[in-house]
């Protein structure tokens, strides 16, 4: 990267906020999707909207790509500087500017950590409902870009259902207000299309988010099954029975064992093939009736043990085990590949059974922990990168699993995004005409394709290939 450009960036961001040395830049070569790496030419730590506008103008002048980054917890390479250039880190913009209980809104900067917002609002009786497993570290800006999910989006919806309006800097360097704090802003829903655009439509510099009332009561049940298929069938029955738990999560045997062997052990039954975590929330007066319906359904599907968390401590232990399950899986192996796919909930058990068959046949160990209530599967493939050809084989097996999901009416990603991980798979699902419609929107927001290039679309649809 030319020295002149670095000088211009230093003049805008200040010497200390420009990371140009190789060892500084190396830390930004990937996000939490470590399969793809590319060291950026320069990394900027910015804290003002005006700086972002000026940096983008400089990047455009030099024709250099730029990539937004939050906490770097993304799982599809969203923050990967695939074609080099500038990584713009927004994690210093972490002020909660306003909490407005009357309108149930919070105004935040993009670097605010997801869980911090709920911590700040819970004394007033509210929280921010989207709760990705990374919520202790992931930032609101990243949550917006990826349209993050989480266990509780079964009942409360994804991040996009909780974003009211945005202040953004477009890939042209122009700041712009999208939507309004008041409801029903006339015109196209630009907030809706911006959320989940994986950093290709610019950078959000402020977000107005919807706050949700803390539930009056919560009940958390743990249901253990001898057979994985029975657990899946129980999930379909709960949904068909017209019950919407706050969360409906599943862990398979291998995950249970790894959680129980970790510091986050949750007292899960280690002889079960699968456990469901079923959480109900809402009015205390409603929960008894709902709980007994769920118990009845679980029993009908050969549930062999049902446990109700007796207090907040027991409940926290269960959730800690669940949210750290991915980390615990890391102890079982050298490397792992976390797949994210979705299937219609009525097809859950047949697809899950098929996925285990595929792994068995390929001789790859599989651990599974997923948002069963949403049909959002997270098979974790365990392997050793050092073994010749193993990484390639794992990717092929993972793709075969995706194809099974798609054949059942499913899709490529439920919450992790497409990024650089699955962009070449988009035609498994979408025709070129479908992709052209999406590209029209990209052409409006990001006409030069300098903002996070090489993501979402197959490479032949991208300028940099």
């Amino acid at each position, binding site marked *: 990267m030319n020295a002149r450009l670095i000088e211009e960036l230093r003049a805008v961001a200040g010497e200390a906020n420009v990371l140009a040395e190789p060892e500084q830049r190396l830390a930004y070569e990937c996000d939490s999707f470590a399969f793809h790496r590319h060291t950026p030419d320069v990394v900027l730590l910015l804290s003002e909207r005006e700086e972002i506008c000026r940096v983008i103008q400089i990047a455009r002048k030099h024709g250099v790509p730029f990539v937004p980054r939050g906490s770097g917890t993304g799982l599809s390479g969203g923050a990967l500087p695939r074609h080099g250039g500038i990584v713009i880190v927004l994690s210093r913009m972490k002020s909660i500017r306003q909490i407005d209980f009357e309108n149930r809104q919070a105004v935040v900067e993009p670097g605010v950590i997801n869980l911090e917002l709920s911590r700040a609002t819970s004394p007033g009786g509210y929280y921010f409902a989207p709760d990705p497993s990374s919520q202790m570290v992931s930032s609101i800006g990243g949550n917006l870009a990826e349209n993050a999910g989480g266990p509780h989006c079964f009942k409360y919806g994804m991040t996009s259902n909780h974003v009211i309006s945005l202040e953004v800097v477009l890939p042209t360097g122009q700041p712009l207000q999208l939507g309004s704090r008041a409801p*029903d802003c006339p015109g196209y829903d630009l907030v809706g*299309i911006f959320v989940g655009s994986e950093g290709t439509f610019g950078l959000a510099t402020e977000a107005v988010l919807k706050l949700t009332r803390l539930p009056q009561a919560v009940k958390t049940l743990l249901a253990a099954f001898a057979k994985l298929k029975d657990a899946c069938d129980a999930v379909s029955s709960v949904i068909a029975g017209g019950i*919407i738990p706050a969360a409906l999560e599943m862990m398979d045997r291998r995950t249970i064992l790894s959680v129980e062997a970790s510091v986050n052990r949750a007292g899960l039954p280690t002889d079960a093939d699968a456990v469901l975590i079923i959480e109900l929330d809402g009015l205390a007066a409603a929960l008894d009736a709902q709980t007994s319906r769920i118990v009845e359904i679980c029993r009908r599907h050969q549930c062999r043990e049902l446990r109700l968390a007796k207090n907040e401590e027991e409940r926290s232990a269960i959730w800690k085990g669940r949210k750290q399950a991915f980390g615990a899986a890391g102890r079982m192996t050298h490397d792992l590949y976390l797949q994210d796919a979705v299937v219609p909930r009525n097809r859950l058990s047949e697809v899950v059974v098929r996925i285990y068959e595929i792994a068995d046949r390929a001789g790859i160990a599989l651990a599974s922990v997923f948002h069963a209530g949403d049909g959002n599967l997270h098979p974790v493939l365990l392997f050793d990168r050092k073994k010749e050809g193993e990484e390639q084989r794992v990717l092929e097996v993972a793709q075969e699993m995706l194809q099974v999901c798609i054949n059942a009416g499913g899709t490529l990603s439920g919450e992790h995004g497409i990024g650089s991980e699955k962009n070449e798979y988009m035609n498994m699902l979408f025709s070129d005409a479908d*992709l052209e419609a999406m590209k029209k929107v990209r052409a409006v927001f990001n006409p030069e394709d300098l903002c996070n290039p090489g993501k979402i679309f197959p490479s032949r649809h991208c300028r940099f290939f």
Partner: protein
Amino acid sequence: MIDIDGRSPDREVTPATPQELSQVMRDASDSGTTMIPVGGGTKLLLGNSARSAQLAIRTRNLKGIVEYEPANMTASALAGTTLHQLQDIPKNSNQFLPLDPPHASQATLGGIVACNSSGPIRFRYGTVRDMLIGVRIVHADGTPTKAGGKLVKNVTGYDMCKLYTGSLGTLGILSEFTFKVQPRSDTLATAILSCASVVQALEATQLFLKSDLLPDAIEAWNREALLPLSEFTGPAGAPWFLMIRFGEVEAAVRWQLERLKQIAPQGAGDIVNILSAEESEQLWEKVASAREAPVSREEALVKCSVLYRSAPETAGQMQEIGASLGAHTRLYCHAGTYVLYARYLWENGDGRNAKELHAALGALRRHCQAAGGHMVVEKIRPDVKNGLDVWGYDAPALEIMRRIKREFDPKGLLNPGRFVGGI
């Protein structure tokens, strides 16, 4: 015959399949014919007058449920299906699509999505954007595309469902939808409270919102608005009424009614009636359509959306404007979401000239915008639309919207001029 702002399109076609729709649009595009999509025809007056309206494309024959999967809690249907037809299918399974726009028996899903129609239960369930998870659309040149799917959680590509929702047929004609449906509540109940003023009604609402209550909907209506429904309000006469709907399992509905009795502010929100499940069903069906119930008098329908602090003053202004224009003013406020509708009705011969209406509505719009909100004129006499932008939206983001329109409809053939900023 379709009448849009006093004018009829030159021709109309009623394609019977998505393929026919695609062919019709390709032909129209090739010949440079302007197209006006029409669903159930309940929102024909929404939007500015079209610059040109050569071909009306009616979607009413594109109807039917494509797939309903209770165990996936999703329903897919063609765009010309009415909301009622969709609601009838899942009835036996205790699931429903939680939308209550006016005229559920006539309004088509296509129209509801394109106009982003909603009703009182948006307080609990949200609006179209919160439940639409898959679409098929035919673009201006006849190209069909799809987006989303039958998944309740999906981040595969851009969220095009959001872009098409509320786009008023300016980006294409929607042909099929998949919605996330919800369980029906075991039972319903409604409490009706009387209030002395809109301020009192909204303050009481704020009190309930801060409590443990989880209502489906909270409506604050003035007496004039409730007159056609007076059988539900009991004998009490009051300037304002609050209608609060609860939907849950029996025990939770009962608990909420008890709790409401404890916290309702005496003298500033007295409970005057409690409706059973059956009465509630009847009331809320009427409530949903009330603001658009047919009348033989001249009328105007205005929607203001604001934030809590400015809601009482906005309602006050809406009422004053009605008085200054010599109209009967019916005010329908979604009290928990601060979306307020005023319906102005004039006795024969009392209607005002366009200039007077422009001045009064302009003042109301300035008030809403100063408070960070919006004012949209949803219905008004065709001659008054001349010289009036019914949307009143001119924020900088309009430029992005215009570019999106140009990308999707470069010839400007779909509903030309009816949407924001002349789109």
